[in-house]
C-alpha cells in the first residue's frame, strides 16, 4: 500500500472523537504527499463504528475483528496493530496521542525497532521532507524533529493539534482484515472500569474561578489566593501538582484528569499552562494569567496577562478590588 494508515480508537464500542483529528491529519498528508489513506479499527463487534468511519474521505477502513480485542490491552492492541502494519506496509502510521495510545504505541513501535514520534502539535512539509513539531519542556518550547528512519514511521498527534470538525466527508470502502491472537499472548487482565465517588465540588457551574498553580510555593500561601477568590466571589480551582501535594482537595483540580470548566472569568495564578491543564479551562469566556515568566504557555491562551511576582500582584489586586467595591 505504501500509504498512510490512521489508528481509529474505540473503547467499549464507542469511537473516540479525537480519532477524527488523526484522520484529518491523514487526509491533509495524503493530499500533499499523494499517498493513499486507510484507517484501521481494532475491536470486537464494532462494525457500526467502521460504517461511521466510512463516511469520511479515505480509501479503505480496515476492520480488525477479534475476540481478544474486545477489551483493550496493550498486548492485544500492539500485536494486532503490528500484523496490520505488516500486511499493509504503510509509510506512515498516525495516531491521536490519547491515554490508550500512550499505553500501547511505544510498545508497538519498539517491537518493530521503530521510534514513535509522540505528541506532535503540527507538521511541516518542505520539498517532500516531513518534519514534526513537538512540544518540549511542558509546552514551553517547540522542537522541529527530523525523521531518520525507514517506513513505517509512527507519529502521534496531541489532542487539539487538528480540528476534528474539519475532517472531510466522503465514502470509504470497509474491508475486513484478520489477525492471529491467542489468549496466552495477552498477559494483562483488564478489570472493572470505574469512576471515583461523585465530586463534592462542581466547578462546571462556576461563574468565576481563581485557579492556583505551583507558583504559590507552599500550602500556607494558598491563603493569598483564597483572599482573591473571596474578593471576587469566585470559586477556587487548582492545577494538578497543588492537588497531588494535598494543598487543596482533588475535586479542585482542573484539566484532563480533573474538571472541565467554562466560567465567565478564569484567573490563573502561578500556572504554567501545560496542555493537560489548558484542555480543562480553555473554553472560559475570559482568561487572565498572572505569571512571572513572560514565556509561560498560559500567555498563549490568556486574554489578559500580568507578567510579575504573584506575591506582589495578588495582594495589590485584592486591595484594588476592595477599593472598587467600596466605591460601588
Amino acid at each position: 500500500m505504501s500509504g498512510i494508515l490512521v489508528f481509529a480508537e474505540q473503547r467499549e464500542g464507542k469511537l473516540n472523537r479525537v480519532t477524527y483529528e488523526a484522520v484529518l491529519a491523514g487526509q491533509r498528508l495524503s493530499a500533499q504527499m499523494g499517498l493513499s489513506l486507510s484507517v484501521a479499527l481494532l475491536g470486537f463487534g464494532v462494525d457500526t463504528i467502521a460504517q461511521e468511519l466510512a463516511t469520511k474521505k479515505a480509501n479503505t477502513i480496515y476492520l480488525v475483528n477479534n475476540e481478544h480485542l474486545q477489551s483493550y490491552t496493550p498486548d492485544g492492541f500492539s500485536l494486532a496493530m503490528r500484523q496490520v502494519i505488516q500486511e499493509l506496509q504503510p509509510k506512515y502510521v498516525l495516531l491521536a496521542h490519547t491515554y490508550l495510545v500512550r499505553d500501547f504505541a511505544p510498545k508497538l513501535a519498539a517491537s518493530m525497532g521503530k521510534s514513535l514520534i509522540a505528541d506532535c502539535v503540527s507538521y511541516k512539509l518542505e520539498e517532500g521532507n516531513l518534519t514534526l513539531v513537538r512540544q518540549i519542556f511542558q509546552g514551553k518550547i517547540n522542537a522541529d524533529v527530523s525523521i531518520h528512519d525507514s517506513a513505517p514511521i509512527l507519529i502521534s498527534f496531541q489532542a487539539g493539534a487538528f480540528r476534528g470538525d474539519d475532517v472531510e466527508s466522503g465514502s470509504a470502502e470497509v474491508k475486513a482484515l484478520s489477525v492471529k491472537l491467542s489468549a496466552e499472548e495477552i498477559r494483562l487482565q483488564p478489570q472493572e472500569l470505574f469512576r471515583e465517588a461523585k465530586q463534592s465540588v462542581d466547578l462546571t457551574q462556576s461563574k468565576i474561578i481563581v485557579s492556583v498553580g505551583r507558583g504559590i510555593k507552599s500550602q500556607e500561601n494558598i491563603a493569598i489566593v483564597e483572599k482573591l477568590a473571596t474578593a471576587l466571589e469566585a470559586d477556587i480551582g487548582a492545577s494538578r501538582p497543588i492537588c497531588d501535594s494535598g494543598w487543596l482537595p482533588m475535586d479542585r483540580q482542573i484539566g484532563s484528569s480533573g474538571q472541565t470548566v467554562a466560567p465567565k472569568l478564569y484567573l490563573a495564578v502561578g500556572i504554567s499552562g501545560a496542555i493537560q491543564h489548558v484542555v480543562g479551562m480553555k473554553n472560559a469566556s475570559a482568561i487572565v494569567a498572572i505569571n512571572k515568566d513572560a514565556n509561560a504557555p498560559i500567555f498563549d491562551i490568556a486574554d489578559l496577562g500580568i507578567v510579575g511576582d504573584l506575591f506582589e500582584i495578588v495582594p495589590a489586586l485584592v486591595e484594588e478590588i476592595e477599593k472598587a467595591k467600596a466605591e460601588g
Partner: protein
Amino acid sequence: MKIIVCVKQVPSRDAILRINETGTWIQDRDLAYDVNEPDAYAVEEALQIKEKLGGEVVICSLGPDRVQMAIKEGLSKGADRAIHICDPALDNLDALAQARAMAEVIGKEGFDLIFTGLQSDDYGFAQTGVILGELLGVPSATIAMAVEVQEGEKSVRVKRELEAGWFQWYKLPLPASITIQSGLNQPRYATLKGIMNAKKKEIRKVTLADLSLSRELLTPKQKIERVSFPVKSKKTEIIDGSAKEAAAKLVTKLKQMRVL
C-alpha cells in the same frame, strides 16, 4: 521484591528557559535541576512496597555527572543502591535508543518491577517505561494511580488513570514495568540520618564500553533540529506597570467585563 526505579534529572520547573545561540537547544549552563516530578512518586511507591514486603530498591539514572544529585536524593530517602549510566555518547538520544541502553543494564541487573515516571518534563517522550517493558519482554501498564503487589508476589494490580475521570484496574504477572503518575502517594522528605546513610551506599557507574550495544542500535531515529518559543496564536494584552498599577488596570478591565 526487587524494584528498579528509573529517575531522570530535568531542569527545574521554575527555571526560565533560554534558547542557545544556534537555536538547537536551550542554554543549559546555569540551569537548576530537579528530579522529574512523577519519578519522585515512583521512588516513594517503591519504598512503600519494600517496607511492606522487603526486598531492594535500586535507582537507575542515565545522564551526565550532575544526575548524581537526583540519585542521592533517592538514596537518602531509603533506596538501597544505584546505577548511574553515564556516557556522553548516550546523551540526547531518542526514547528508543536511550531505553535500549537502560534495558541492557536493567536486564542484567534483574528485577521484579520497573517503575518509571509516566513522562519526562524535558523531552516529554512519554515512552521510556513502555519501551523498557517491550525490550525486556515483560508486560507494562501506564499512568498508575495505585500499585498493589498481590499475595505470593506473582502478580500486581495496577489502577490506571484514564481520561475524563475514569479509572481501570489491570492485573499483570510479574515481572512488569509500570509508569507512575504523580499524586498516587505523598513522597517523603529525606531525613538527616538518611542523607548520612546515603553516603555509604553504592552508586555503580556504567559506561558505553560496559554495554554490548552496536552503534546502529544507539543511532537516534528522530532528531531535534531546531527549537523555538511557540508563536502565540492569540493576542494577549499584557498589562504593565508596578504591581499596584497593574492591579488597578486589571480591576478597570474586570469592571468592563462586568465581573465586578
